[in-house]
């Protein structure tokens, strides 16, 4: 029997197909977020040699390993700090930090805050699945109140972070939120975020079928997607204080912040040229 010729996947040049199938569970939203990211790169028509993906640890931390660009899988929470070094070392790179909510907002919260304040020209794609999934479903800083997790067996008692509000308060120049279902809008947002000079944040609400939805009896990944379909509403420019996510309540999506600010590199170069010894 002649072997049937398999047509190459259209994202063969952006993804490391030799590493796929990936480690993510069935019905996980991270793969969808990666597809959106890959199509955003395709849409941008950037030179892929000038793109760098930095990830931390966790399920989403593995994204760096699947993207066929210069990619770093670094320590837990430090992806933004590492990306800061890459961007400052080679300012022509488009540096994208692709990591999870626990990585970016919990252990790396400080780096997130300060990179936003410093306005380093990087793009953060934060996949928010409301839980620490790789370690087995512990409560995360984004877990909604009353939701169950292995470390909140009686319901979460800690109010969660509202990522767009945090990003806005810290000074991010571009903030958007979409779910893993709204792939086309998500793609457009990633395109805009990468083009935007400064610290841009795209939050992707993603189903975690194996931990978050199983522990909370929310069905499988498809049920989570159906929930997003029915309960996610688009409200562009919504004040970020209204963007809290309550347990199984409405999720507001859209582009919330888009403003101009000089980046760290612009300011630094200005200072550097002033401090240069004057030629006599």
């Amino acid at each position, binding site marked *: 029997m002649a072997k049937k010729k398999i047509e190459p996947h259209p994202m063969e040049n952006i993804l*490391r197909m030799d*590493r796929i199938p990936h480690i993510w569970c069935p019905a996980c939203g991270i793969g969808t977020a990666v597809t959106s990211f890959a199509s955003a790169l395709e849409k941008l028509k950037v030179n*892929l*040699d*000038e793109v*760098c993906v*930095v990830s931390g640890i966790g399920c989403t931390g593995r994204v*760096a*390993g699947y993207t*066929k*660009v*210069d*990619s*770093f*899988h*670094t*320590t837990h929470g*430090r992806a*933004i*700090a*590492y*990306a*800061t*070094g*890459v*961007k*400052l*070392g*080679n300012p*022509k*790179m488009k540096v994208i930090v692709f990591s999870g909510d626990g990585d970016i907002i919990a252990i790396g919260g*400080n*780096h997130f*805050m*300060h990179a936003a304040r*410093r306005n380093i020209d990087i793009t953060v794609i934060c996949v928010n699945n409301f839980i620490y999934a790789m370690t087995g479903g512990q409560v995360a800083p984004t877990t909604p109140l009353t939701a169950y997790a292995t470390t909140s067996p009686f319901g979460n008692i800690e109010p969660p972070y509202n990522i767009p509000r945090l990003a806005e308060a810290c000074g991010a120049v571009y903030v958007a939120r979409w779910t893993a279902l709204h792939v086309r809008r998500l793609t457009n947002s990633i395109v805009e975020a990468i083009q935007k000079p400064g610290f841009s944040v795209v939050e992707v609400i993603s189903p975690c079928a194996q931990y978050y939805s199983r522990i909370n009896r929310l069905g499988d990944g498809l049920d989570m997607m159906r929930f997003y379909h029915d309960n996610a509403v688009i409200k562009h420019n919504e004040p970020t204080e209204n963007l809290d996510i309550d347990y199984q309540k409405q999720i507001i999506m859209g582009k919330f912040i888009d403003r101009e600010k000089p980046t*760290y590199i612009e300011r*630094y170069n200005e200072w*550097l*040229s*002033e*401090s*240069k*010894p004057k030629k006599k």
Partner: protein
Amino acid sequence: MKANSKGVLTGTHNLSGNEAIIEGAFAAGCRFLGVYPISPSLEATDRFLQRSGEVDATFVQMEDEISALAAVLGASWTGKKSMSVTSGSGLSNMMEHIGLGIMLQTPCVIVNVQRTGPSLGIPNGVAQGDTMQARWGSHGDYETIVLTPNSPQECFDLTIKAFNFSERFRVPVLLLTDAYIAQKKTLVKIPPTKDLKLISRKLFKGAKNKYLPYKNDKNLVPPMVNVGDGYRFHVTGLTHDERGYPVMTSECQEACVRPLMEKITKYQDEIIEYEEVETDDADVVVISYGATSTVVSKAISLAKKDGIKVGSFRLITIWPFPEKRVRKLAQKIDAFVIPEINFGQIAFEIERCAAGNCNVFFVPILGGGLPTPEDICKSIIKASKEKKKIEKLIEL
């Protein structure tokens, strides 16, 4: 004060240890500094900023030492020679990324101006309590290179050496100074650019699709590429194969981690540097490094008045430890005397190498000041009175 086009400030200058380190770094080609401010390392940052306009260097003050070293590693992958300057508890924070730097094989230099501990200690107090942390601080097995200068001039010279080692072996190299060396000012001679011996990392030159990030060359060091050069590589802190992809097997762990150590142990004779004075016919040898070595010569001259044959052995490289030489010395002398500004760290390593062949006397000081020559002299006299253990055994 005017540097040449390469940023080298050739001439003789009155510099503190911290300033000499930055001059050494600029001379070595360092163009990135990521720091978090901590006493007593601050003059180094000031010096870097004063001169960065001249040499087009990039500086970032991060939010903590963890991110400072992370940024240094990131910048190093873009092809810039990078460094960080810290102190005591800052080094404790950096341990996470020293481990990452070792696993990703990222060249960089970390200057640790030691201060007392545990925890905050005396911020500007002289100490040498980080020698074991510098070797074993991050988890897992690794070999590292640690240098200890004892004067501003040596701060300059060893910083260049530290960059050369880090680039050659692709490893984070630590430079351990202390508040005393870092802040005392002496004349430092900076040679002309052509007299500087600089090493830069070996870059991969082959086809773009043929690059394997962790395929070792014959020296067990894989050639590197820079971010943005189009090799589109992947590297990870997980145990990885030649392609840089994670593989979770014990065989891969062996293949991945063993060369990390062997690349340094194999060439340790080229790395190790020490200074010996009158050890040939000595009965007692004083082993010292960094700040303590500055008082040893006075102590030795005091002891010589009592007719004791004393030699001095100064460590310049403390890791890898000059084990061969110390073992050899131990066989022909009566005792080692080790003044250290800690409760015995390198002393334990010397005791291990002495292996019972001679006595080992500590002169510990817990930090905040230098040991007095009299204290060291007292120990030398005590050491000379005790016979060599092995001789005792034969007499019995």
